[in-house]
């Protein structure tokens, strides 16, 4: 398409165009952007500047006492939230490893033990040998509308960062979870639902399916003898595989049924994902949470796991992931409250 080619010289001056190409398995990386040197704004005090964060000292004055800094094997890992006076701390599970040490607001350092883990929400309950700590004051996130300020307290007087609520707490649908969570081997086909099986509408050149001889209009019937009924089932199945693994795929081609063996590749970075990396590191575990509150605070992955407070200083959630260029996700307070007992009691004991 000539008009697109013509426009490249233009985009390279200012950056990447923001349109994205549809389906998950199809979009190739289209990296036609150049680094630019634009930055700052003549003297504008942005949300990330120290001067700006000062205004939020009062907002986090109380919650900083309920925030702990977590280091694993002496490395910065996450923040944590004190949820019980007798040493209960909630944090992001997947950042934990090795020897876990919590630094309290007063500077005291204590070794922690994991007592419970919620895999779905990526939350871990830690137990410290401590008494008379200051637990957080929860508030249902739904009491704060979209556009409300949120602050992430750290170990200092001013918060680590601030932002606003971008999207109110919402449940993530099963199919979106399946799509977003897909992380296994990469087949390299674009598909749509068919009466029986899953129809291939595009075979991406050079990828596993193309190398194995897949063709457009082939219908995937089964993988490794397991029936594939719909695209979701295919995503789920591929999600369990690893790059380098071989799968046997039974296909219907015209009237014939054939079986091909494909060696799965690694998933290429999509254009959307590529753009999401522009602007800072993202959490490794950043998708798949069944209920999330989305805000626009710019957080480092190691600054997740701690409380998220509103202007009244009430804790409306726990930051669970830096998940994209535009988004940070928190597990809303109302969801956390339903998990606390099970995480403490050992009902959700770590594996």
């Amino acid at each position, binding site marked *: 398409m000539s*008009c697109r080619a*013509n426009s490249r010289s233009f985009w390279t001056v200012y950056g990447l165009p923001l349109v994205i190409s*549809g389906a998950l398995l199809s979009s190739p990386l289209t990296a036609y952007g150049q680094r630019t040197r634009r930055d700052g704004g003549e003297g*504008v005090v942005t949300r990330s500047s120290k001067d700006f964060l000062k*205004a939020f000292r009062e907002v986090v004055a109380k919650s900083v006492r309920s925030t702990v800094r977590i280091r694993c094997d002496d490395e910065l890992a996450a923040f944590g939230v004190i949820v019980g006076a007798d040493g209960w701390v909630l944090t992001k599970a997947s950042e934990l490893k090795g020897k876990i040490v919590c630094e309290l607001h007063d500077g005291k350092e204590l070794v922690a033990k994991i007592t419970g883990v919620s895999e779905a929400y990526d939350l871990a309950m830690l137990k410290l040998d401590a008494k008379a700590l200051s637990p957080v004051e929860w508030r249902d996130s739904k009491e704060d509308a979209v*556009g409300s*300020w949120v602050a992430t307290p750290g170990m200092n007087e001013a918060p680590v960062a601030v932002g606003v609520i971008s999207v109110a707490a919402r449940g993530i649908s099963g199919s979106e979870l399946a799509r977003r969570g897909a992380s296994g081997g990469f087949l390299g086909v674009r598909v749509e639902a068919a009466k029986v099986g899953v129809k291939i509408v595009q075979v991406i050149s050079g990828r596993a399916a193309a190398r194995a001889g897949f063709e457009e209009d082939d219908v995937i019937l089964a993988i490794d003898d397991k029936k594939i009924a719909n695209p979701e089932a295919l995503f789920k199945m591929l999600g369990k595989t690893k790059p380098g693994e071989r799968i046997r795929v039974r296909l219907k081609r015209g009237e014939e049924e054939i079986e091909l063996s494909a060696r799965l590749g690694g998933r290429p970075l999509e254009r959307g994902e590529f753009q999401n990396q522009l602007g800072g590191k993202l959490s490794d575990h950043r998708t798949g949470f069944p209920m999330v509150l989305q805000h626009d605070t710019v957080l480092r992955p190691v600054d997740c796991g701690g409380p998220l407070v509103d202007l009244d200083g009430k804790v409306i959630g726990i930051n669970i992931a830096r998940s994209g*260029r535009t988004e940070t996700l928190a597990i809303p307070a109302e969801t956390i409250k339903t998990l606390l007992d099970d995480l403490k009691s050992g009902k959700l004991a770590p594996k």
Partner: protein
Amino acid sequence: MRNHPRLSLTPSSLPRIALALLLGMAVLTPLLAETRPPALDKAVPENIQDLRVIQERVKKVTAKVSSATVGIRIGDAAGSGVIVSKDGYVLTAGHVSGKPDRSATIIMPDGKRLKGKTLGSNVGIDSGLIRITDKGEWPFVEMGEASKLKTGAWCLALGHPEGYRPGRPPVLRLGRVLERKDKLLRTDCALVGGDSGGPLFDLDGKIIGIHSRIGDRLTINIHVPIDTYRATWDRLVDGEVWGDGRKRGPYIGVEFDEESTECKIAKVEKDSPAEKAGLRANDVVLSFDKKKVEDFADFLASIKKRKPGDEVPLQVRRGAEILEIKVVVGRHPANR
């Protein structure tokens, strides 16, 4: 003359409350009628009270403008847009709307899907327009003025990062204007693929920009200034594509016989204005609007002076006959 909403500049001398009534924007009145709290314009919020004032305004604006912020799907590509008239004109980015006359799907915040058609775009500045073709009345927002913005002004970005997702309303980001030029606004409202074409609002809930592109830092988010949409409204509505050397000038769709010393037609393009007028291969054009045509270059120069839509009488020799043929000048197809 096509029917489209008048979106002319409003004289700034009018008192704000009168303005609100004049526009019939009853919803907007509470926002505009109150005197603007100083906290909204401070370089740095000083305390929790200042933050509260900003928060209340941001919440109010978001609640008001979300309903007009839409997702757009054209073929395999996903972007965003914003409705600016009751009858369904949708502003978007030029690289989202692309060529004119393509079918587009407009996705309302509640997931309702509407049919639409792409109109014009300025490829250079990246402005684009789409029209909802389904019958109905749609929620819309007003266009503001980017040229009056000061750097440091608060702004709200809405849109659909990574494309529309069922159950997720338009996503809010708050930032400040970091740089303003005639052809672009730069803010720290973080954008990503799928946001393209989405609206940037000021604290009065008026559109000041349309999301266009990003750089590798969170302070490089580029928006098309809204003023260009107003200034080029008729061209966008007419489906013109221009800018970046891709002009869609006047056109009638004939090829000429280069061997001929006269203005002899070698080929008439399919579906062109020339074909519709009844011109044929081997016709020789003698005059254009009663002015004698010497050769092909002469004829071309005459066409270029006309606007698409103009009807022009031609005198044509076909065999032994002399014919009078009226041709309506068209616009050069976008894909050339």
